């Protein structure tokens, strides 16, 4: 399993991000860590599922990228209630407009093409009102 596909799973038909939490300081990490970067080696770090909703901190529409990423597309930083900022693709199609502080919800979508030209599906965030 690739690093990308190990960072999320489907639960009851919906995607969920797989993070971790330090048993000593309570810091939450994404993606999941074996060692807490705040504490260093020692304290136990336990896997946890992260909230499926967060707020958009900043976003950009990309018009140029590597060949495996058809443009244009949006990327953003999404702040989750656990105190984690996640960089993710933002699914925003049609005439919907993004704003900082928008509430977003986790979903899945194709984000890239693999070496044989097949779509790579990943977690994405999309405006909560537009989420299924």
């Amino acid at each position, binding site marked *: 399993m690739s690093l990308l596909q190990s960072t999320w799973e489907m639960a009851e038909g919906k995607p969920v991000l797989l993070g971790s939490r330090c048993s000593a300081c309570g810091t939450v*990490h994404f993606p999941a860590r074996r060692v807490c970067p705040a504490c260093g080696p020692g304290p136990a770090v336990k896997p946890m599922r992260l909230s499926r909703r967060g707020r958009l901190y900043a976003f950009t529409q990309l018009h140029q990228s*590597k*060949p495996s990423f058809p443009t244009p597309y949006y990327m953003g930083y999404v702040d989750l209630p656990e105190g984690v900022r996640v960089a*993710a693709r933002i699914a925003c199609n049609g005439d919907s407009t993004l704003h900082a502080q928008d509430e977003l919800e986790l979903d899945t979508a194709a984000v890239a093409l693999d070496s044989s030209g097949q779509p790579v599906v990943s977690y994405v965030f999309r405006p909560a009102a537009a989420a299924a």
Partner: protein
Amino acid sequence: MSNIYVIGVGMTPFGKFAERTPDEMGQEAVVAALADAGIGINQVQAAFCGHVFQGMSLGQRILAPLGARGMPVTNVENACCSGSTALHSAVRLLRSGEADCALAIGAESLTGRFAGALSGDDSDLETMLGMTMPAVYAMRAQRYLDEYGASREQLAAVVVKNKANAVRNPLAQFKKEVSLEQVVGSRPIASPLHMLDCCPVSDGAAAVVLCTDAALARLGGQRRAVRLSASVLLSGEFDNAPTDMTFETLTRRAAEAAWAQAGAGPGDIDFAEVHDCFSIAEATRVEGLGLFEKGTYLGAVERGEASPDGRLPVNTSGGLLGKGHPLGATGIAQVVELTTQIRGEAGTRQLGRARVGVAHCRGGKAVGVEGTACTVHVLGS
């Protein structure tokens, strides 16, 4: 502890030179730096060579054909701080007393290396999702413009300034001034950044010769020696909590360490070379350094305060936006500019007051680490 001096500088033109190898460009820079110092290669006791993508043993590939006789050569990779980290490593060696004359080299050939935009490492989760370096800085720009009420045109003024400075630097990649309209009308890359907000793909090399008090007395050349009073390298820390992306805490920490070494502060700085890989980066760099208050830089640029005739000229060389950004060479080239200005040898771009200058580099990204490396050097007295 001995003072450290820059006694020789050299650099190639920066630009797109698909036919040139990093080895040959590095040799041109080293030969120029040695000639400038007035010494032979075997008076140099150690060398450090910064690069990012040039394969194994670049430093030895540059130096052995020039007649180096077995001196220790260390190759350094530290993203956009590779050259400045090579410089820092040479300073540390001289301070340790194990050598009294050393070379710092940076060389990079990037033409044809990238399809599309520069990204983090392919093993990086965010790179797999489509994150690019322009996208990271675009989001910083969006927050900065929103939070401080700055305009898209004010951001473009940084580009206009640096491209104009580059016209007066014969070694710079860009030879033409651009207008605000050309910047905001250039091809969109990652909103709100356009093509001209981004530094170009560049090839080039730069080198400096450093020595101690003892070597300066032995080698001569005191008249044109420039004292290097601070050399700091810091690494970014992991933090995936929400933070203020409009302010560079890593730059601030490195600057404070540099002021302590130099016995100086932001108020003593006459001019600066900072890592303007994107227009927005120049603002967050100089504010992180404390040269301008947080959120005020774009207005200051618009008022001409960072222009060559302003109160604190920034990137008189043209910066990365105008001079070019051959990754490994960049940090060394900044010190070439500081040295040339402080010596009063900068020709048509010579500043009226250039006694103390600061050079800043910041680079690299990884998940949870916004900037992996940051260097600050202070020159002059």
